[in-house]
């Protein structure tokens, strides 16, 4: 579904490349998380996959990005929009303000794509139901909370039925409740299947719980690309500033202080942590 070959990109007026010789493939239906410290090139990668590089942000680019059988650089943005959806950080700035109601905001993209009205009505209702905003369809988008606005942004993109959904830190400006709301929608989407998801996210506990695969970026390069437990556990990724989940940190401390002698990889999810800490060796130690 996604194929990136030797992608290198530098923004105008910068001397260092934001992405440096990045190559990877993502099969259809995969939930792929992208992690890494600030300025690692995560947002740049999102723009490159969704076509805003090179169509919106011009700069020096080499290599090739193919998404949903389209060569991104050779496809106009408007043609990419229906296939590749982009959701980003700031909930408020994603509300276009072109329409006065939540329903109208969700329909705006379809209006521009010329979708017939009957189809729009059905799809708007579906999208609002999916993100749990059905009851707020006639409200003004500005009246919604941050979490609700982010779900509205998600609905506005989902309603276009993209094959690839790209989310650039969609929960960074949300409180824990708002974060949970957004991830609940993503979980539902993944369960329904079919959509390929690229998620840039700092909240590693969520990444560990949801992603099929984690790509770690640092300094514009891929430093790890493996299942969540391998990447979030790796000392190299931690050293590069990727960070570790609370579960991993707690388990590592426990192991270092010989509180736990459980063998194998450290946990990255709650379930794995429960298994780690309830293994017999801990009980024996405490006894």
């Amino acid at each position: 579904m996604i194929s990136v070959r030797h992608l290198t990109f530098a923004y105008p007026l910068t001397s260092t490349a934001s992405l440096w010789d990045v190559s990877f493939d993502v099969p259809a239906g995969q939930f792929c998380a992208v992690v890494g410290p600030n300025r690692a090139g995560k947002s740049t990668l999102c723009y490159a996959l969704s076509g805003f590089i090179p169509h919106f942000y011009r700069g020096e680019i080499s290599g090739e990005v193919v998404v949903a059988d389209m060569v991104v650089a050779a496809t106009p943005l408007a043609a990419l929009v229906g296939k590749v959806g982009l959701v980003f950080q700031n909930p408020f700035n994603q509300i276009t303000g072109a329409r006065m109601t939540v329903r109208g905001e969700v329909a705006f993209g379809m209006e521009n794509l010329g979708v017939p009205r009957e189809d729009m009505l059905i799809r708007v209702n579906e999208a609002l139901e999916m993100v749990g905003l059905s009851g707020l369809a006639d409200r003004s988008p500005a009246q919604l909370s941050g979490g609700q606005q982010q779900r509205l942004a998600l609905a506005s993109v989902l309603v276009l039925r993209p094959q690839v959904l790209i989310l650039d830190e969609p929960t960074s400006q949300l409180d824990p409740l708002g974060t949970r709301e957004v991830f609940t929608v993503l979980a539902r989407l993944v369960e329904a299947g079919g959509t390929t998801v690229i998620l840039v996210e700092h909240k590693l506990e969520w990444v560990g719980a949801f992603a099929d695969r984690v790509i770690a970026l640092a300094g514009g390069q891929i430093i790890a690309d493996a299942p969540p437990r391998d990447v979030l556990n790796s000392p190299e990724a931690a050293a590069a500033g990727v960070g570790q989940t609370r579960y991993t940190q707690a388990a590592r401390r426990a192991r270092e202080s010989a509180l736990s002698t459980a063998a194998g990889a450290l946990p990255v999810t709650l379930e794995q942590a429960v298994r780690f800490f309830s293994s017999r060796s801990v009980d024996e130690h405490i006894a």
Partner: protein
Amino acid sequence: MTSSFSLYAPRASRYHDLHPLTKLAISAAIMIAGAGLGGVWPAFAVFFAVALPLAIWGKVAISLLRAVWPIALPFAISLFLIRGFIWPGGTIIATLGPISLKAEGLEFALAALGRIVAMVSAFLLLSLTTAPDALMLALTERGFPPMIAYIVLTTIQIVPRFQARAATILDAQRSRGLETEGWLPRRLRALLPLVTPLILSSLVDVEERAIALEARAFSRVGVKTSLLVLRDTPFQRTARWLIVVILAAVMGLRFVPGIAP
């Protein structure tokens, strides 16, 4: 903080149900007739005989009156004081020490007030009963540029947000010791640290908003559709033309020398 800068008051009324262009034509007629017809009484007649009954029909009369008087009253007071007392020559009605009240001055003030009331009420009648997006859709359907329609609609929604951000910046700078009260030079000096972050943060927003718009295929060329549907009737179409014709006739009569009353 209100969520929208729009005056629109949704009500279940037949006037609300009219096509936005019909309401635009009516308001334009009230405005032009109120301002263009000479004399003291036509403007008030337009207000009491047309604008107010329509506002009552549209169930927005109270909102309209509530919005008209804070605008009209200061005008009324200053007009009566300045024009009533300072009028060269004319018939003296009453004398107050060195100044005297003139009949012609009062008449002029009353006529000016009538015009203001008619124009403001025409604007309010349209704004209170017409959703901004419906009006913009009606205009774009007739060739109005979508980009300008978008700017109007988004401004309506962004202004309250902008005000909230300005208030946040004001609080933030005050908490760092910026003095924003006192004599004028001090206030002026405080302006720069308030306006700069407001403009810079808004510029960052513009970039993200442009991306959000493009992510919804805003600049796509081709046939577009609309979720909102406007109901128009042959009767309203005829009525709109009639309004234009009658208005043109009345104004024509007024400005053709010799026929004017």
